[in-house]
């Protein structure tokens, strides 16, 4: 119990360090958060000064940091520089599209990973294993945006089977239509992750298969299917940890895919905000995605402790 508590408390300083990094990143830039207005001829120095004061940017940096942090923790994420709406509103309206894409990709990636990873581990060093491993290397070498553009070209432009971008059509927005829009971006995101996950599952399962209890099970004459089932169950725990962590990274990793397919999610919001130097949105995006990583890391660690008696002692 105290170990669990200690692990939870460890996340707090980490989050504080991340917040300092994010704050420093934006505020130590030359020209500060208002740099983009410096190039605008319609904004006079007096305007700039007024803006600076109204946003509280004239205060000392530590004061600004503390008030930003306090605001962030209490859910006051400030207002978007580009359209003046609350940052939280902008993020919440984009979240469902990203969650939809990430969930679909997660399911597809797991459907690919589980069979291929297990087959590769069981048939280690066979031709099948080698083919799978080579394919996974290809997967991690694939530039996501280029792959996305190619899929768009082939399946949307040339074959006309699927819509090339967006989340729904202008006129219809039924389930079938939304599913069609989901296919291409989810495929890109799923394949990229399936490649990494298959490698991981293969090595995790391979490790379990070389352990003594597997040998003992075989020695007792347990059918090979049962042996593999046991091994898989043991390999699934570390594998689930990796998947959980990757799911957090997927949300922000969708930046590229969402931009290629004009998917109206958080990734799209991020690239828009980047183009307009919308710093309040960028800071909130970085903080939220880092927090998601830290929290899911914590969840993975704790559930590991809960599920695996070997870690507990």
């Amino acid at each position, binding site marked *: 119990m105290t170990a669990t508590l200690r692990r939870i408390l460890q996340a707090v300083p*980490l989050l504080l360090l991340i917040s300092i990094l994010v704050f420093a990143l934006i505020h130590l830039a030359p020209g500060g958060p208002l740099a983009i207005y410096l190039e605008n001829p319609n904004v006079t120095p007096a305007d700039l000064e007024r803006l600076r004061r109204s946003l509280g940017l004239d205060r000392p940096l530590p004061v600004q940091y503390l008030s930003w942090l306090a605001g962030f923790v209490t859910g006051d994420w400030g207002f978007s520089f580009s359209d003046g709406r609350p940052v939280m509103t902008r993020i919440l309206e984009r979240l469902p599209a990203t969650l939809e894409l990430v969930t679909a990709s997660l399911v597809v990636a797991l459907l690919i990973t589980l069979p291929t990873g297990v087959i590769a581990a069981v048939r280690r060093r066979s031709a099948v294993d080698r083919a799978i491993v080579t394919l996974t290397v290809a997967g991690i070498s694939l530039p996501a945006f280029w792959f996305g553009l190619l899929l768009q070209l082939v399946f949307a432009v040339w074959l006309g089977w699927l819509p090339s971008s967006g989340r729904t059509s202008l006129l219809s927005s039924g389930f079938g239509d939304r599913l069609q829009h989901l296919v291409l971006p989810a495929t890109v995101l799923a394949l990229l992750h399936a490649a990494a996950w298959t490698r991981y599952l293969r090595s995790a399962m391979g490790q379990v298969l070389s352990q003594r209890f597997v040998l003992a099970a075989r020695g007792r004459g347990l059918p090979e299917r049962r042996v593999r089932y046991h091994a898989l169950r043991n390999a699934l725990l570390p594998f689930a940890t990796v998947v959980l962590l990757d799911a957090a990274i997927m949300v922000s990793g969708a930046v590229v895919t969402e931009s290629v397919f004009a998917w109206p999610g958080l990734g799209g919001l991020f690239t828009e905000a980047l183009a307009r*130097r919308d710093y309040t949105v960028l800071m909130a995006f970085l903080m939220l995605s880092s927090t998601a990583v830290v929290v899911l890391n914590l969840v993975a660690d704790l559930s590991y402790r809960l599920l695996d008696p070997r870690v507990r002692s």
Partner: protein
Amino acid sequence: MSGAPADRAAFRRMAVVVGACLVIALIAPLLSPYAVDASDLTLRRQAPSATHWFGTDDLGRDVLTRVLHGARVSLAIGLLAALLSSALGAAVGAVAGFAGGRIDAALMRLTDTVLAVPRLPLLMILAAILQPSIPLLIVLVAAVGWMETARVVRAETLSLVTRGFVEAASALGLSRPGILRRHLLPNVMHLVVVSATLAVGRSMLMESALSFFGVGVQPPAASWGNMLYQAQGSMTSEPWLALFPGLAIFVTALAVNLAGDRLTEPA
């Protein structure tokens, strides 16, 4: 290179691939009859043909020539960023593992912090703010890529310091920096080589992603990423503009990663 013969073979294969790419990049002007910026406005947006194997772009420049020249930028960034990030990671990991105590705790908290912030968005913000030149771009790509190496090297160092030969060196009066340099670093090198190999492909993909979003290598310099950035609008009418630079990224990353894969698990 130390290690098993299979390691060495894999390393040699990688060296051959990277060497071939480098040679192609270096002699790019000799391979192509066109100059990299020579535009022929009468031959704009030509599909691939016998005279222009990869076609021409919207300014009538030869795409094959630009892909060959782009190799210089993309490979330079991939190789140098990988080298820099691995050196940084090895240094952080070895010092943390060897020094222990507060230094270890501080370095590992730093590692955890950078590791928790999503890599590509962080890099995109850095690049958008700093508008980096190519050397600075290399530093930035390395700055977000050293953490995994640091962790692996630290773990290995921690297990090495308990071993007899390190204790012996210490008992014989070798200074602590001496032990680090003479006994620890050589013994973690194999891990650093593996992570550096994998970092080459990743760094190249990072560069191309940054350039694809217009915050990486700036035109008129050609990199594979910024050629894709310029091509994405005309994907339907001139697909060759996007096809070839992307293929170059994919094939190079694949070659390097396959070599890295053989290094981690000799076949």
